[in-house]
């Protein structure tokens, strides 16, 4: 270490945060192989993002499930400390309620960042479903449209084989993608790679996302 390296002291600043909300369908139809693959995927996400020195400190994960009820199974936690719990399947598909909850969580998190002088990136919300909503979803869809138009967040929707992509297309402004089989692990590694890029991104980055063809039907 040169004498200059030894002499210069760095400021301590909180790391800028990259909020990532996973909105996951845990309805009855996800039972069996799908929920197992989904759990594997979430674990793969946690493992991958933890490898990135910046991302593990900057990415914050929140998990909202919808299977019968809407539950926040993981409140915001830094990615390096994220220990996914095993999700169980059961119940109907209150997707509208889950989206509402997710948008509320994003808004609250931003308010917390601002109150604490913490810089942040544009939050992501990733919705994964294998079916169609069994609750009222139109108001939530309008909220998503407004939020995207106001650049408040980036909302992505992914449907498995049996999912109603038409309805998803009315909720998300970005074209929903169909998952290839049960390639949740590939999807979640893609998510981690994307979040790693976002958390290191610089002004002017369009944050080119990695290709989706590993997990999406294109």
């Amino acid at each position, binding site marked *: 270490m040169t004498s200059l390296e030894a002499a210069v*002291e760095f400021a301590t600043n909180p790391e800028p945060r990259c909020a990532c909300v996973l909105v996951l369908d845990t309805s009855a139809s996800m039972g069996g192989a799908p929920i197992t693959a989904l759990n594997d995927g979430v674990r793969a996400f946690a493992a991958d993002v933890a490898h990135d020195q910046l991302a593990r400190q900057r990415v914050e994960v929140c998990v909202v499930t919808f299977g019968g009820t809407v539950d926040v199974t993981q409140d915001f936690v830094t990615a390096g400390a994220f220990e996914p719990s095993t999700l169980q399947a059961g119940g109907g598909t209150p997707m509208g309620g889950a989206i509402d909850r997710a948008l509320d969580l994003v808004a609250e998190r931003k308010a917390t960042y601002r109150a604490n002088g913490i810089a942040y990136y544009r939050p992501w919300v990733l919705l994964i479903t294998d079916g169609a909503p069994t609750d009222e979803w139109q108001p939530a869809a309008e909220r998503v449209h407004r939020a995207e138009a106001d650049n408040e967040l980036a909302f992505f929707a992914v449907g498995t084989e049996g999912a109603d992509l038409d309805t998803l297309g009315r909720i998300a402004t970005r074209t929903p993608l169909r998952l290839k089989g049960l390639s949740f692990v590939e999807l979640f590694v893609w998510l981690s790679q994307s979040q790693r890029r976002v958390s290191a991104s610089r002004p*002017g980055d369009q944050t080119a996302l990695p290709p989706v063809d590993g997990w999406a039907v294109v």
Partner: protein
Amino acid sequence: MTATATSTTCVAQVEVAATRWSVLGASVAGAGHLAAGLPGQDAHAWAMSDDGRLVLAVADGAGSAPCSERGAAAAVLAAVGAPDDPVGAARAAVMAAAAASGTPPSHLASTLLVCVVGGDEIVGWAVGDGAVILEGRAGMVALLPPEHGEYRNETVFITSDGWESSVRRVASAVDEVAGVAVMSDGLELLALDVGTGTPHAPFFAPLLRFARGAGRGAEDELASFLSSERVAARTDDDCSLLLAVRAA
């Protein structure tokens, strides 16, 4: 127009209104850029104007804009030749470079920080993030703190629509100023209290002290510092630091 000093020379010494100043600077590519096979997209330059003012400039090319390193280079070279309107000159140069190569201006997008040290006044100009820090009697002060949008990875570029209303210009009396540091935003988390935009004195003081005592190879040492593991652990962005210190 003087080019930046090379590493084989002694630190550049200039005279502004009979006061001697030393100038040294370095721009290094961030680890993130190197990993992605991208060049560094920061640039810096300085020059003496015809009327004896010292003009310092740092530009930070937009992240994934394909040739923003060309935009940053064009911006600083034009800025140091136009002490009274460095931002206008930089923008014109970048737009001209874009037109000449048939490239969309957004591909050459960059921020710009300029500091003009004159006999009476020190003037700072900024479009976008990064900062201009002064060392004065009261300690370290931000002449121009960084400006970000709502999101950490957003800022304004000299090629942006509405750039003109984003130009910040601040002047200060020069006789109180002992040192100047112009830095790109790669160093923000290390050098500033980000919440308030105030400079972290234990970051700048040793650097300005180093500049005062700097001899041959000082710019190499500065570049090594910016490329060091200590810095890379906190930022993988390009980093630029341009220092000017009044001789004791």
